[in-house]
């Protein structure tokens, strides 16, 4: 077995938390159950990884199998990576039958015709997701297995989720291969990024609970505004205000859990409006400013702002439009004459 492959397998196993190693190796399926039985999972990881490499040598593992193990690791720990969303466009409206082997062939063909040194690995999952791992090389160097790109494609949708490696120069080639393989004619990057792949899918596939406007002549009574205040000795003076805020929040955010995003970024190119007496800026140029909101769970925290009394309800539409516009990067320019202010994409 190639030394580089052995080292790669060893390092991949080291990344896995000790309690998960056995299950992951079983999922991999490259080592037999009998071989797995011989492993001692109660020793330090250094030793476990050495033993795994030893067994892989017995089975003559090559880089292809090692790459599959890497995909499995990244599928389970997908939230460690940053994912961007891309949308593909078709010229016609026909829904063609999707042939997975045709897809794979075209994808590999496009990449390999441009770059000989690439490692391409596919793995399909039950939710129609096709995971693709690409390790990039140069015409003179073998692929760097430690900086691969990952692509997740759901075949019945025009969306692709990419976690690019640091080597950004390969991105155009990757996009090209994707549109050729999937029979689309164009691809563009959406302004939507997050660590939570599932949340990105929820947003673009519209799987989160949205509030649809239903016709109610009178707002439904109360709802459960303060379920924890069961003590009747506590009287809420501002109950009607609290209920109004709750109702507005429900209308905007819906009832369920929000998709998980970590930040929203607003690039402002607007004129600075100051008191003329202050005379802060002489130049009549747009004031460039970047506003970034970060949070472990941005949308849930926005949802809780008004009920917590930290912001007035309703919240600015700039914040609340994030899920249904499917973007968390915005560029805001000055109103131009009679045109309404719009969120202009680059």
């Amino acid at each position, binding site marked *: 077995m190639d030394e580089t492959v052995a080292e790669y397998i060893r390092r991949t196993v080291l990344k896995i938390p000790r309690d998960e190693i056995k299950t992951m190796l079983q999922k991999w399926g490259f080592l037999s159950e009998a071989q797995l039985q011989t492993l001692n999972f109660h020793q330090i990881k250094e030793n476990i990884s050495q033993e795994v490499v030893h067994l892989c040598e017995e089975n003559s593992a090559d880089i292809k199998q090692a790459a599959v193990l890497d995909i499995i690791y990244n599928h389970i720990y997908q939230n460690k990576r940053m994912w961007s969303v891309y949308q593909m466009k078709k010229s016609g409206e026909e829904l063609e039958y999707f042939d997975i082997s045709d897809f794979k062939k075209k994808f590999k063909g496009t990449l390999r015709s441009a770059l000989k040194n690439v490692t391409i690995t596919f793995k399909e999952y039950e939710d129609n997701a096709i995971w693709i791992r690409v390790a990039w090389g140069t015409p003179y160097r073998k692929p760097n297995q430690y900086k691969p790109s990952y692509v997740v494609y759901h075949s019945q949708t025009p969306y692709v989720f990419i976690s690019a490696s640091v080597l950004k120069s390969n991105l155009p080639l990757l996009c090209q291969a994707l549109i050729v393989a999937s029979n689309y004619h164009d691809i563009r990057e959406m302004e939507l990024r997050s660590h939570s792949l599932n949340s990105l899918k929820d947003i673009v596939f519209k799987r989160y609970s949205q509030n649809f406007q239903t016709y109610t002549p009178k707002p439904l009574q109360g709802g459960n505004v303060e379920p924890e205040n069961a003590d009747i000795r*506590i*009287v*809420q*003076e*501002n109950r*009607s*205000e609290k209920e109004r805020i709750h109702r507005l929040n429900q209308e905007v955010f819906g009832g369920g859990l929000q998709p998980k995003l970590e930040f929203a970024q607003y690039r402002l190119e607007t004129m600075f409006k100051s008191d003329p007496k202050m005379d802060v800026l002489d130049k009549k140029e747009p004031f460039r400013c970047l506003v970034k909101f970060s949070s472990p769970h941005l949308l849930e925290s926005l949802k809780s702002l008004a009920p917590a*009394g*930290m912001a007035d309800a309703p919240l600015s539409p700039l914040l609340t439009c994030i899920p249904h516009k499917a973007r968390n990067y915005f560029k805001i320019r000055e109103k131009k004459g009679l045109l309404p202010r719009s969120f202009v994409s680059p």
Partner: protein
Amino acid sequence: HIATSLPLPSERDHLRPRIDLVVFMIDIKSKYSLKNVETSLAHVDASFFLGKVCFLVTGVGRVNACSIETNAICKLGEAYCSPMLFCELELEGVRVATAQRLLRMLQICAGYIPGVSALSFVSLMRNSDDD
């Protein structure tokens, strides 16, 4: 009765009992909280400031997150001649002790303790530094 700010909504005026003690809660982590209390103070009748108003400053356990200077808060307490309590709601022991203190103050303000009235609080407010 819990309210987010003053004045209280007038629609519930007829349901409200006599008010014996007003506790203004200031979250030391939020400048907005202090501002809110300052604006609400303007709506309190002057007679309440004879011992029936008290300030409760919360969040003091998290020293790193303080947004308001203790100086500013103490000045507020002095300006309105009202006691200032500091507590950390996240610690159960402190929370219970503070609740007991407030309850005691409320009993006095409501006249349940013979011999002691709310006016006593004003005299207790005198700082040893002042003399």
